[in-house]
């Protein structure tokens, strides 16, 4: 028994929205980075599901590419969070407000 493509896509859309909401609503940069990872991985899930449905390996390869880039992005992201909040006791993006946005 196989799961229909639409279910995978619905799941990935839900994960994507949770990720987008997380970036907008949460104030902790680490949680925001995790939420961004959710968004990216929701796309991965969609890629893999579509690739399986259309028997086209390009989607699988794309997912691997995204995983690799996400790793690099996480490394840089965590490094930046560390230098920004090195001396802070807790991390909250509302504290980062030298530049008036």
């Amino acid at each position, binding site marked *: 028994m196989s799961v229909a493509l639409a279910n995978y896509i619905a799941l990935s859309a839900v994960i*994507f929205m949770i990720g987008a909401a997380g970036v907008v609503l949460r104030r902790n940069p680490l949680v925001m980075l995790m939420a961004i990872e959710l968004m990216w991985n929701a796309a991965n899930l*969609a890629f893999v599901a579509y690739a399986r449905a259309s028997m086209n390996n390009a989607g699988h390869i794309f997912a691997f590419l995204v995983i690799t880039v996400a790793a690099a*992005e996480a490394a840089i*992201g965590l490094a*930046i969070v560390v230098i920004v909040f090195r001396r802070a006791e807790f991390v909250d993006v509302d504290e980062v407000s030298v*530049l008036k946005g």
Partner: protein
Amino acid sequence: MLAQPFPLSDYAAILPLTIVATTPLMILLLDLILPKGAPRRDAAVAVGIAGLLLAAYVLVRQYLAHQFAPAFGFGFILGGFSIAFSLIVVAAAIFSLLMVLPQRDDEKVGPSCALMLWSAAGAMLMAGAGDLMTIFLGLEILSLALYCLCGMVLRASPVRLREARESALKYLILSSMASGFMLYGMALLFGATGSVNLAALQAIPAGNPVFAMGCGLFMIGVAFKLGLVPFHVWMPDVFEGAPLPVTAFMSVVTKAGMLAVFARFLYGVLGTDHQALIVPVWIVAGLSMLVGNLAALSQIDMKRLLAYSGIAQLGYIVAALAGTSTLGMRYALFYLGAYTFMNLGAFAVVALISRDQEEDSHLSAFSGLGTRHPLLAAAMAFFLLSLAGLPPTAGFIGKILILASTVAAGYQWLAWLLIAGTAISVYVYIKIVRAMYVPVDLAHIREIRPLSYAPWIAVAVCAVATIALGIYPAALHDVLPRIR
């Protein structure tokens, strides 16, 4: 289908890209070998510029040979289109590298130059991207290097350091989120067609909901990176916080790379069948012209001001594409070229008048520049007039061409918005010109002692190009028709 290895000609097609991507390795190696101080610093910039010039030479050779070759199974498409955008990226990178020198910090000059070149390589990859995977890869190479660059201030005050790191964090989070939107859009586009190739996306009939949603999410990502209006909030903060050479670099290279992707998507995929999907983009472009210029009115920091003016300028360039005519593409490229020279020229002047170790881009730094340094002030005035679109400059010709193409495409309202935006922008730029030439008590003006005269080269080249394109636009126009 792809079981065989790629032919050698595929690798020849990406030769300029390879040169730009490998030069940083040499810079980092020299950084280890050379003694600390001037040799190490100068070598990093010199090697970087040499690499870029070599890449430019290869690009020109490819252009003259009329090469049009899809490489790597349509992953990278070499042609006049990709070459023109790559040349703009290379030129912008050279000017930005020249601005690195006045800010002396031996520890960070090498890595800064290396990251800048890698970032440029990402933009060049985007310029030739023929499928979604290459677009994503190029975009991320460009962005990841820029996140680091934003935080890499050379020796500076604690406040300045905090500003720079803050800009890096903001850019990282907002840009990654935009990449997320774009990526999900790409997944949906892939789902709608079963292919990542842009050429295959073309075959989708209008009205496919998955395709429409994919396009929408993709365009949100594009609008964010271009800094078009509802998605522009990151730009002023990131531009103000990042080191000056990086701001200058970002203001052209990210835009050129993304514009190439947008234009290819627009012309290659949406074409004429999906006009309904693309109308929001023109509205967004029109809004950018107004909001960017209005917000620029009240700015007192030069980098912030140029960020807002950049939002408006990008609005003009995107407006040129309205109607998706071949002519519109050519005019957009002309304006992008003009924007590269006038914008980077202005940044180079700011780099020259920056205080010794500190970056000082406050508008008050410009008061009395006309008497203190007439040549520099004249160049700056010229760049600003060009940005405002007054004759006899490249900006003027560019705007006339864009007006012509939007009207020809039937987007009169866009042309009116362009004129309104231009009218507002004249105030913005004239304010600075006036500050430079209004007589002031010279005793209160600090001496300008740039640490390096390298940005002078950028100022001179940009000034000559801005004038030349303004007086004799046919020079570029004769070259452009070959672009496809």
